[in-house]
């Protein structure tokens, strides 16, 4: 079944169609939210809310205007940005550093140099402004085109490209400074 058929079924209250859509999109939505929020608990809350909105607002999705995944990522983006504005970024950085990356080797006591660099990169990403982190995640990890990513973030393609360029420069500089 196509996304359109599944969404029509959801509009009619079909819970099986909802389950199929959850299984199809859960991973990408949770990964995107995780990149923005930086901790597992908030990511799970936001992901749950995204799919609740898919269920309650199914009629608002227009297949001729955007792909379902774009629509869902836009919902996730807006929820994450609202959350970050309410709770600030300090918690996010703390979460990146202390909670969910405990499995990575800590700087200075790494098993290998790659683990150190990975931790540095993770920290560098967590310090990027939300728009840069979001742009980088959508284009690098989620595989959206610049146009789709710009639509998700509700900015122009030019602004998106500028955000990606700044993010990349910042990451390169931070990694180079720590080598």
């Amino acid at each position, binding site marked *: 079944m196509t996304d359109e058929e599944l969404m029509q079924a959801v509009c009619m209250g079909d819970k099986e169609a909802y389950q199929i859509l959850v*299984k199809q999109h859960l991973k990408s939505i949770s990964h995107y939210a995780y990149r923005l929020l930086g901790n597992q608990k908030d990511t*799970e809350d936001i992901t749950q809310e995204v799919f609740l909105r898919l269920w309650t607002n199914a009629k608002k999705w227009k297949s001729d205007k955007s792909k379902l995944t774009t629509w869902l990522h836009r919902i996730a983006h807006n929820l994450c940005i609202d959350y970050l504005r309410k709770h600030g970024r300090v918690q996010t950085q703390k979460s990146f550093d202390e909670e969910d990356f405990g499995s990575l080797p800590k700087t200075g006591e790494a098993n290998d140099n790659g683990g150190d660099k*990975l931790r540095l990169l993770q920290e560098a990403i967590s310090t990027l402004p939300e728009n840069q982190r979001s742009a980088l995640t959508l284009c690098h990890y989620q595989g959206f085109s610049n146009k789709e990513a710009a639509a998700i973030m509700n900015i122009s393609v030019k602004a998106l490209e500028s955000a990606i*360029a700044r993010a990349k420069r910042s990451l*390169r500089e931070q990694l180079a400074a720590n080598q």
Partner: protein
Amino acid sequence: MTLEEFTRIVDLYGAESARWPKALRAECETFLANNAPARMLLDQERVVDDLMGQLEFPGFPGLESRVLNQPLPEPKDGIFGELANWLLPGESFGKQIWRPALVACIPLAFGIVVANYFSFGVGIENDGFQYWGDELAMLSLTDYTEIRF
């Protein structure tokens, strides 16, 4: 090509030359061959690209069942459905009192609109105007000199 232009291409498309725009690829490669800072930039970008590819996401165990088993409200029915749901008796005591009263007002409002349309329409006012117009014309033709008191 300048270093700034090359940097922008690397920022947007990464270190892999196959992902650079076809129209600029040859120019970028020539520039790269003759420019040491560009090569250094590309090396740094390769490191970032490689590391970004290695970053892993947590597995979120239990999230799928949590999302699948969350209580789902009835899907929204559009504006008319929402209106009907709002008008029908609700679960709280306040709504149970208020909503039937509102429902009862609907035929009353409908009756007022219909009665207003049929009973106090523009036609009667026009007739009145014409009537008074005729009256004035008749009065103006009356020869009051013949009236004797």
